[in-house]
């Protein structure tokens, strides 16, 4: 059964930063890309490396040899071992999107007030009404 879990406050993960959290025994990497939050499993599906230790990169493409286009700065995580690139939005690898992918999780940013009033309680820290919280559904 899916449940929602508070994993961090928004101000704990600055743009460009990441945090590794554990939810029900699963390691999940939470990434802040220019204020937008993404969550993917920490285990590379290729040989099991910790994806969170990889570099955030942009997307390099070429419409033809000699022509480079660079976009989506920081939206791909590159595995620290073999360099597989995974799209933080989908968890899919760039080269084998259907075959090699990491689980991506739905994230929501919610105000503390709403969380306290609802059914949800943070497991590891108290929720304060003034703050914004990152909530992952697992």
């Amino acid at each position, binding site marked *: 059964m899916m449940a929602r879990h508070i994993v961090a406050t928004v101000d704990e993960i600055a743009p460009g930063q990441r945090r590794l959290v554990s939810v029900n025994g699963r390691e999940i990497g939470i990434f802040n890309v220019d204020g937008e939050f993404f969550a993917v499993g920490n285990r590379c599906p290729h040989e*099991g*490396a910790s994806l969170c*230790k990889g570099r955030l990169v942009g997307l390099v493409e070429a419409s033809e040899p000699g022509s480079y286009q660079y976009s989506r700065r920081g939206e791909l995580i590159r595995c*620290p071992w073999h360099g597989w690139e995974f799209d933080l939005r989908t*968890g899919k690898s760039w080269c084998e999107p259907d075959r090699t992918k*990491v*689980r991506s*999780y739905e994230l929501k940013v919610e105000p503390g007030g709403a969380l306290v009033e609802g059914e949800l309680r943070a497991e590891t820290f108290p929720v304060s009404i003034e703050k914004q919280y990152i909530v992952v559904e697992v």
Partner: protein
Amino acid sequence: MSTIEMDRSQSAKHKLRVIDCDIHPAMTSWTEVHPYLEKQWIDHLSVYGSHLRHAFSEALSHPRMSPDAARIDAYPDEGGPPGSSLELMRKQHLDPNGVQVGMLIPLRWNPGSQRNLDFGAALTRAMNTWQVERWVKQEPRLRASVLVAQEDTEAAVKEIDARGGDPNFTQILILPRTDEPLGRRRYWPIYEAAVRNNLPITVHVGGTNGHPSTGGGWPSYYMEEHHSVAQTMQAVLTSLVFEGVFERFPKLRVVIMEGGLGWIPSLSARMDKHWSRLRSEVPHLKRPPSEYVREQVWFSTQPMEEPGSAAELIDLFDRIGWDRLLFSTDYPHWDFDDPRYAFKANLSEAQRDQLLYGNSRNFYGLG
């Protein structure tokens, strides 16, 4: 959630038992080797430097995809390059991956490619002692490799004979980009010394000889350079076979390390085909070339081939010979193979144990 997570955690439940034939130790600083190097050569290095047949002799011929060609997670907290911390090596690799024995393959300074032969020979002596003092004596799971300056055959033979009776050493290391192809007779005294000391010759990718790394000239991209290691190994193997090294030294054992595997069956078949037609050019060969390969050559597994289907991988192992495959990780380099996930096929426990452990135990004569 529609995403399917590839979960191979099943295999992780089994306790691992691994012999890793390819671990790259590094120096925190060059001064680590000073206690084992004559003062003359310490001064030489500081005044004249390291001379290899390429520009920027302290750099690699092609930039790697990651600094130090290393896993990004392999940098020690206390500083220094990946592979320089024994503590991290234990914590990150030896302990969790069940490594019973790990073979050291030092690459830095490339003594076999040094243009100054005496400096190269001095470096081999120093780095061989450094391996024992800095690594093997501190960690009984590790074993050293006898580095040799192969372009100075006399010095190489002397060093092999000096280390031959020392159980800290398990193999002789040569990087394949040598001045001439490794089958040439100038190198034969090294093979004679290897047989005399019952040590295999391990040919691990690398070396700088001034020749383009591919048969088609200098490549543009690191990816091409990375592919060229297989071409280099094919050149080494054909040279050893056709020059008659295996015929002359039937007890010589050669390990081709980190050169890939997929090309081995096709090269063997091609050499046999040509031999059946052109045999008279190399009358010193008494048997089809593939037989020498099958009997006297072993191959390390990393970087493991990842064909489209598991059946192709099994077929490849069948063709090469399961007993010829020696597991290796290449720690701490970026193309590291994890023993749990390297073989993308459902292997039986016996097959897995043979690849990860048994073959190397037999080959290196370990316990």
